[in-house]
């Protein structure tokens, strides 16, 4: 105690050092929460230090040396977060791995990263790791968090987390030197040490291991905390994969720098209840999650009583009109302020509370462009949702929207200490303290991405607008042109489609073609609810997707998008002429989308070539397709379907403008 915070900030250049600091200055503040037996359990910072120290020394006793790579495999569990600091405190390097990847994918990462120690969550993950170990004899040590089902295992090198801690505690009790030595080891750590290795999920090719130093993560996290005013009283819920850079920064990096508490959901299925119970003040979700929440709200409102529906619609209208200006601190008439206050009492407040968003101070969304309507929806309810643009290679932050300068069509100006420039090709480049060290064992890719003077190629096309905000159009390799030369930005069109609750996923085609077309995935919840209300019976996704009424509904949605596009001269040529509803949902197990739900275009092109060809053969109204699918247990099967193709109305640019004038 008694140390001045500011100079302290400059001496703590690694996370184990920050942990020691937090255990001192925030000793009795909550650091981590987890629900056990239905009740939230809390660890304070000093308790976390205790847990970390015991396990770290236990691992040392088991022969883990500095430089060793420690893979972390599992959902967001306190012990897995501690493992990051545990590894760092003994000079080892944590490598969080996507927990839902199949054994083959995981096996590649473990081998490429030369992992020798694995900390796994439960039996499921241990089984996977043991399967990988059959071909990879380097995996010497496996720790597990949840012992259920593992009691009978008699495998070499398999230990429970608790057992290792016990070894550590015994060693600590045996001699005071043990702790001193451990502390000395931490003191020797430097900011340039590798802090973590994160494998990018990658829309193409094998995942790449991004090496990030303690400086990268620490400075980025600290800058962002300062920028948003985050401190030890904040709280976050950690539910996104630990292998994803965002979670690493938000739930580890920033938690350590600001000293705030991280709550781990009970299980991935309970996240909605947990969110409501915890009421985080800091929240991140990709647009897809916000989309899902909005869809659920809308579905549930349709089942509500007429009075409630009326009230909901009316006050949503009010919010749409004045909610954002009020949040941005602009001038709004007294009458509207009163109406908005009533709305907050009757609708917005209860709604946000129900979703667990009522305490949110800062909500981020990133990863994909968010539909402007959706963005406005949340902001108009009074939730301070912001966009952010980032990358693993940047330790997340490239641009952040500052309060008061928030718009749905840009991702904001460069974050603190970030420089931004646009290459002649339109590609966005940045340089910042968070810029990664290298791709692990891949000098070629490092050289292609990072220039000698530290500029990083993002692979995204965009421009900086008059206010200095960055606007991203699309992935550089995805932006295309129709045969007549008009711009075709697929993601832009897809996002417009996806705003409709009925549409879960969309893939637009049009590059090097005469016109654009689209694949649609319907949202089974929303359309299923509609089917229930309209007495449409269906046995499967495939059956519902092929229903003529569903087609008509989607057709209306697409025509609305076309009308919308017709109002924007730059992209009016991208209006969709023909579409089909896919007979199956795009699935990460089939490689069609990434685990973070980004469409893998090349895979889709390849797997559904007959369907794409049929979209461009204007005589065809049906097309047969046979697709290989992977079931959840890894078995493969074939799915056959006759898919209907429909044409939709497109609107000339002038006509749309005229219609709008007439309305």
């Amino acid at each position, binding site marked *: 105690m008694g140390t001045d915070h500011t100079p302290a900030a400059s001496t703590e250049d690694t996370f184990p050092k920050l942990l020691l600091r937090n255990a001192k200055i925030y000793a009795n503040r909550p650091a981590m929460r987890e*629900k056990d*037996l*239905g009740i939230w359990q809390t660890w304070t910072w000093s308790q976390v230090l205790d847990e970390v120290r015991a396990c770290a020394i236990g691992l040392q006793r088991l022969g883990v040396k500095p430089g060793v790579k420690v893979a972390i495999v599992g959902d967001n569990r306190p012990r897995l977060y501690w493992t990051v600091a545990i590894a760092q405190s003994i000079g080892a390097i944590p490598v969080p791995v996507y927990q839902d990847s199949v054994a083959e994918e995981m096996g590649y990462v473990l081998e490429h990263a030369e992992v020798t120690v694995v900390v796994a969550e439960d039996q499921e993950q241990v089984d996977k790791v043991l399967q990988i170990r059959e071909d990879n004899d380097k995996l010497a040590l496996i720790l597990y968090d949840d012992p*259920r*089902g593992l009691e*009978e295992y008699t495998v070499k090198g398999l230990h429970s987390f608790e057992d290792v801690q016990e070894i550590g505690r015994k060693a600590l009790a045996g001699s005071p030197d043990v702790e001193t030595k451990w502390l000395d080891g931490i003191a020797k750590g430097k900011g340039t040490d590798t802090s973590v290795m994160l494998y990018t999920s990658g829309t193409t090719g094998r995942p790449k291991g991004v090496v990030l130093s303690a400086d990268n993560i620490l400075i980025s996290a600290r800058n962002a905390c300062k920028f948003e005013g985050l401190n030890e009283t904040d709280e976050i819920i950690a539910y996104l994969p630990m292998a994803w850079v965002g979670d690493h920064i938000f739930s580890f990096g920033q938690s350590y720098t600001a000293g705030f508490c991280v709550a781990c959901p*009970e*299980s991935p*299925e*309970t996240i909605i*209840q947990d969110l409501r119970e915890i009421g985080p003040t800091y929240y991140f979700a990709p647009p897809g999650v916000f989309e899902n929440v909005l869809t659920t709200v809308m579905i549930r409102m349709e089942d509500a009583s007429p009075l409630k529906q009326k009230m909901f619609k009316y006050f949503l209208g009010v919010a749409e009109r004045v909610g954002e200006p009020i949040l941005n601190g602009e001038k709004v008439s007294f009458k509207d302020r009163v109406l908005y206050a009533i709305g907050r009492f009757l609708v917005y407040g209860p709604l946000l509370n129900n979703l667990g968003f009522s305490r949110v101070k800062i909500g981020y969304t990133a990863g994909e462009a968010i539909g402007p309507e959706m963005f406005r929806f949340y902001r108009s309810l009074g939730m301070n949702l912001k966009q952010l643009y980032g990358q693993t290679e940047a330790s997340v932050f490239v641009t952040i929207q500052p309060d008061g300068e928030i718009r749905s069509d840009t991702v904001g100006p460069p974050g603190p200490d970030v420089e931004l420039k646009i290459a002649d090709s339109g590609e966005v480049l940045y340089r910042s303290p968070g810029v990664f060290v290298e791709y692990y064992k891949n000098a070629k890719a490092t050289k292609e991405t990072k220039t000698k003077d530290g500029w990083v190629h993002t692979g995204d096309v965009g421009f900086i607008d008059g206010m200095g905000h960055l606007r991203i159009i699309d992935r550089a390799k995805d932006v295309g042109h129709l045969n007549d030369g008009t711009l075709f930005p697929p993601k832009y069109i897809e996002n417009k489609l996806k705003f409709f609750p009925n549409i879960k996923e969309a893939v637009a085609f049009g590059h090097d073609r005469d016109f654009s077309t689209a694949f649609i995935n319907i949202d089974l919840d929303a359309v299923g609810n509609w089917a229930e209300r309209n007495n449409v019976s269906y046995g499967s996704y495939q059956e519902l997707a092929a229903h003529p009424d569903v087609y008509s509904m989607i057709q209306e949605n697409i025509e609305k998008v076309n009308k919308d596009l017709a109002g924007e001269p730059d992209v009016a040529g991208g209006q969709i002429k023909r579409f089909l509803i896919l007979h199956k949902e795009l699935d990460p197990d089939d490689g069609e989308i990434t685990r973070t739900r980004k469409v893998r275009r090349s895979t889709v092109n390849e797997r559904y070539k007959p369907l794409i060809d049929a979209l461009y053969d204007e005589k065809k109204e049906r097309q047969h397709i046979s697709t290989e699918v992977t079931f*959840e*247990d890894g078995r493969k099967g074939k799915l056959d379907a006759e898919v209907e193709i429909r044409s939709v109305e497109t609107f000339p640019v002038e006509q749309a403008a005229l219609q709008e004038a007439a309305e």
Partner: protein
Amino acid sequence: MSAAEAVEANGAQEKILNIENVSLSFGGVKAIRDVSFDVMKGEIRAIIGPNGAGKTSMLNVINGFYHPQEGSITYKGETRQDMRPYIAASQGIARTFQNVALFRGMSTLDNIMTGRSLKMNSNLFWHLWRWGPAENEELDHREFVEHIIGFLEIEAIRKTPVGRLPYGLQKRVELGRALAMEPDLLLLDEPMAGMNLEEKEDMSRFVLDVSAQFGTTIALIEHDMGVVMDLSDRVVVLDYGQKIADGTPDEVRKDQNVIDAYLGETH
């Protein structure tokens, strides 16, 4: 290592339940005719047979819902002509039903808590005020129930009214309620009826886990032959109320009577 092997390894081939020459009839209908079999401690014992073979009647005899006209039942060394449901329950026999029999308006948690009611000892006075010994007792029981919720991975539906749950989950809740009784013998009546493949796989895993973790003896009726053959240590086959085979899944599979009665013929 299967449960039966575990028992053998211990050298303690203890019979938890012995059914001897049991016959049950309803008026002129003979539901069970002179059936004898036993259940060893810790094993998973399956009762199979075509529709109307008397499987559910057999379970009802075991837990005392039906009283057989002839024969005897020996449970934990005590021989009776018939069981009484409350004796069965208090002596550690729990069951689930072919058609889910839960309290539809109550939450998952409350439904499972009802499985603890036999274990609640403090008197009505305390329970009325939920205070003093009653409160402590309830906390202990809640903790036990939370273990079951964790075990069956139904955290997400803890507070959901059971009537709103899909069928597969309702079955799981029912298993939870039976487990809350900490049974020595668990009777499962078609635990996987009406489930899809994935739900069946989950349920099978839970049945095996129950056996492995709690050492509970399980007697189950099931139609899905694949499930029966994979799960059980021994199988008894009934047909028209009579026992036609008894043995390990492999023995039963090869038995000509069984092939004729069950597997080979259409129903």
